[in-house]
């Protein structure tokens, strides 16, 4: 053929933002291999999104930990603007308080996007837990708040159970997803062994393919068989 390839430089634009807020269980039952693998997964996730040309400018990450207390370890920031903390397991399981903190945080961030006129994508809240919430944690109240939040498209909620997690409780607080005009629960998923690295790799890939429309919301996520227990094709 012998013709020179076309080439042109693209303009620089401000990228639309999205938030992924991890709510992680650091109760004492997570100590040992579980917390080590979780830390390794979080660090790898941070590297992956930092290295990804597009995601690095779009995805803001936040980390909320819950044990006996609830702490915001990373407030929403682009990958190159924060250090991923190393988690330490201690204390009990204030799961409901942790998730509520994340919900408040993403709502506040969305308000800021709106106030400043920025285009944004729906935030994700990802809960990672291995146990039962403390006595007195208001699971029923949280369940209603998550149903309201996901049905009103405030956020996507994804509960992930690590070995020992009470999946019945996670199912109770699962978010909703509209498909074919019907609301369906986005069922909690259970991690296979301690495959945090595979899970975070999947989260990294998923962050870019959240699809939605005015009438049918569905999320075409990458294959989860690498890390989810009991997954069958």
């Amino acid at each position: 053929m012998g013709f020179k390839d076309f080439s042109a430089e693209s303009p620089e634009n401000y990228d639309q933002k999205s938030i992924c807020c991890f709510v992680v269980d650091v109760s004492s039952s997570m100590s040992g291999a579980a917390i080590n693998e979780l830390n390794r997964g979080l660090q790898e996730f941070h590297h992956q999104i930092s290295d990804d040309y597009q995601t690095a400018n779009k995805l803001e990450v936040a980390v909320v930990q819950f044990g006996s207390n609830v702490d915001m370890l990373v407030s929403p920031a682009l990958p190159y603007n924060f250090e991923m903390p190393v988690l330490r397991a201690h204390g009990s399981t204030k799961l409901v308080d942790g998730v509520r903190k994340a919900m408040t945080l993403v709502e506040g961030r969305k308000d800021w996007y709106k106030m400043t006129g920025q285009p944004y994508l729906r935030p994700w809240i990802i809960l990672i837990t291995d146990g039962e919430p403390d006595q007195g944690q208001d699971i029923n109240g949280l369940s209603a708040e998550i149903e309201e939040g996901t049905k009103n498209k405030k956020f996507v909620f994804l509960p992930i159970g690590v070995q020992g997690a009470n999946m019945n409780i996670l199912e109770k607080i699962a978010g909703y997803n509209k498909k074919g005009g019907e609301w369906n629960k986005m069922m909690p998923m259970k991690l296979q062994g301690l495959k945090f690295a595979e899970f975070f790799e999947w989260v990294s890939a998923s962050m870019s393919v959240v699809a939605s429309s005015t009438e049918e919301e569905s999320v075409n996520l990458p294959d989860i068989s690498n890390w989810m227990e009991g997954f069958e094709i």
Partner: protein
Amino acid sequence: MRRGLEVPRYDHNNNNTNNMSLSDWIKNKMGGEDERDARKVLKPTPSFEGKWVVAGASEMGKSHKTANPPIPCQDSHAIKPLEAGWGIAILCDGAGSAPLSHIGSEFTVSQAVGVFEGIIQKNNWIKKGELPQPEVWQKLALNAFRTIRQRVELVAEAKEVKAKDYACTIIVVIYAPFGILTSHIGDGRAGYRDDKGQWHPIMIPHNGEEANITIFLTSDYWLKGDFEMSGVTVPESRVIADPPTAFTLMSDGCESHTFETGYFDEKNVKFIHKNTPSQAFFETLRKQLLSVNAEGATDKDIQELWSKFVDRGNTKFANELDDKTLILGILDEREEKRDERGEK
């Protein structure tokens, strides 16, 4: 890679309950001929002395390529040159949330070409050498989209799936020597270059509160013609009564690599929306397209070069996660005419 020079005709034989082609099936079901079959032979407008060179490609985005299994390209497009410097360029972007949107976008494009060509011929615009009044065009485009949507519904009925499974956006550009008609439902961008070399936007994408929310041909909201999104009606239809020297249309996968879409004003802590075709980007490509055309490149050569560019022409295109369709048409005029305007 999808070719765009020839109008794709969706073959319905795969997994079909009857053996007739989709085109025949529609004629049968709708009880009439496709509009393009009834067109008259028209004489070219004598004053048109240029030649349109139109390049188009629909390429898979990175997330579609790397998915396991890979997700097919949900974008489709068609380019149909007509007489006397007129032509049609159409693209559809299948909804990520719709399971059959790759088929829906291809089918919608193929039907839209016929329907809009039928409108041009029926109204004798080419022979008369005129563009319709904006209100006339708006009504015609609205009705055209209703017709196309009805065909999508008929296919869905025959295949026993929901029409929304075929959901896609659509952008239609009809180019003529003295102006442009546009109409669209959904997102993406389009623009044209005037005879002084300045690029202008010619549509406003229909976006929701969240950045990836849009509206589709199969949505119900727009049917009455009074629904608004992003401050414009759905469909948004425009008549540009200004001689174009180039035009472009694209799916949203290309927009931030080709348009100035906005910036963050740090001082006032405010995002400033923009909808401006990048002058540098389009002028660079326009010159390259003119150059390869002058060197004798065939349509096939140009489409191959263009597909490669849309697939991986620079790092932004190469790293784009979404599917990408980019169409660029340039008017290759006689040298003397460009000299008159002082262009090289």
